[in-house]
């Protein structure tokens, strides 16, 4: 019989997703994918909120999720704008191409 998912299993799931997101940030060599990875992380967090909501029998978490999505949207907007600006300077999205600032 399949084990019943507990609060912990949800937490662990979100943790896994979160870590995958982090991994994406420094595994990928493409700015957009990096942004996507951040989105993955945010979503993982959302899962925690919702699970906690169920646990506490409230809806605050869901509202927070709502805010998080807004923030994510805003970030995405700005991030993509920056990416466009960058792309205008150098015809590439490889983050390692932008290392004029260092040391």
């Amino acid at each position, binding site marked *: 019989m399949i084990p019943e998912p507990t609060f912990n299993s949800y937490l662990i799931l979100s943790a896994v997703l*979160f870590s995958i997101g*982090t991994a994406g940030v420094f595994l990928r060599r493409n700015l957009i994918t990096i942004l996507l990875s951040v989105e993955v992380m945010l979503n993982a967090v959302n899962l925690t909120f919702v699970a906690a909501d169920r*646990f506490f029998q409230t809806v605050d978490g869901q509202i927070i999720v709502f805010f*998080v999505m807004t923030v994510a949207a805003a*970030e995405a907007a700005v991030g993509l704008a920056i990416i466009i*600006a960058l792309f205008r300077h150098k015809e590439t999205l490889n983050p390692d191409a932008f290392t004029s600032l260092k040391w």
Partner: protein
Amino acid sequence: MLNQIIPIVPVLIVALSACAVLLAEAFRRQGDWMPVGWLGLIGLAGGIVTSISLWDRNATGFGVITLDNYALFFNVTICAIGALTILLSSGTAERDQLPTGEYYALMLFSLAGMMLMGSTRDLLVIFVALEIMSLGVYVLTGIKRTSEQGAEAAFKYFVMGAFSSAFFLYGIALAYAVTGTTKLDEIGLRVAGAVNDPNILLILAMVMLLVGFAFKVSAVPFHMWTPDAYQGAPTLVTGFMSTGIKAAAFAAFVRVFLSSFEPLRGDWMPMLSAIAGLTMILGTVVGVAQSSVKRMLAYSSIAHAGYLLVGLIAASSAGKASILFYLVAYAVTNLGAFGVLAALSTPDRPHDDIRDFAGLWRERPGLAGLLTVFLLSLGGFPPTVGFVAKWYIFNAAIQENLIGLAVLGVLTSVVSVFFYFRIIVQMYMSDETAPGHRPRVPAVALAGMLIALVVVFYLGIVPGQLLTAAADSVATIF
């Protein structure tokens, strides 16, 4: 309902002035001049006035905003930072061909965010405010669209920022998962309840929040963005973020860690001590080898974050007050320094290589003198405010018997003197003179620097009132 509004009046004024600036910019026809900067100044003045008038009122509203003296102290500080920045930017911003309207508007918005960070008692709002502030500054960093470095800096800052805010959010989530709330007070109650055997989730939440704040105050090892962002951003934006963001971040940092997570002090103190030590060491040591002044100041700001953390660790009332005082001191000094840099920069060259300062004394004795004073203050020499601030921090540290950190702090500050003085050496003692002409200094910007100068000396010689103010304001929060 109205008394609900009261506590948010200052931030509201600032935000509205930002909108006003936007509108003004929108209705500006190509070429004709619009006093956008002054609008901002008015708004900030309003913010300051209202904040002061609300002193000791301890107004609360919306269940998440508390305008205790602590918050007010930061409101005033942040508004002052903004005002000073605007003063210094006037003239130089145009010269660097920045879109002034958006420039000031974004600055004001992020100022509003900063003010919020200090005056809320809800993690969610802190998060949102943090985002407002950060997004504004990301954009400001890259606002000079012609500069590739600016874009690069903005992107690095943005990526790291988003990354860290994800962690911060995760921290909030974990805290929520344990306590079922994001209100600092209730979290505090839960923490106090579980102090002798803290729930591991709580610890994790604490760690994540700590990471988020540590990133914003650029503490090692979360500092990597700082030098690049500082170097790439337009000079005054650098000044703005180095002072404003630090202040706001510490406002929230102190509130969260010394109210809700105070009971866990025993748990976070060693970790934070280690971070503080690393921060001081790395900031000073790496600063020694820098040749770009902006980058050097970036590392110096990292080191200063270390000193501030020492104050946070001390955590006594003296410690908290010392943080407040230090932030003010650092803000005025650093802004002054960046103001001088900005005044010297030309559209084509940021004038931030250390060799650009060679022989500055002969051509611009006034500016050289100003920069000297600010550098001395950064180095912590009496009778400048920098000395009092450092003394106050180490005062707190010694009281709490943090001898090791104190010793580390003073020794690193000695080392830091070395790189501050490299600039002085260039200005006064090098025989050759830097090529390229020196632009004329806008009057308003000069006024701003002079204000900074006066404050540096005034607070250095009679710091009494500010010290008491800081002490009072921290007294209200715990």
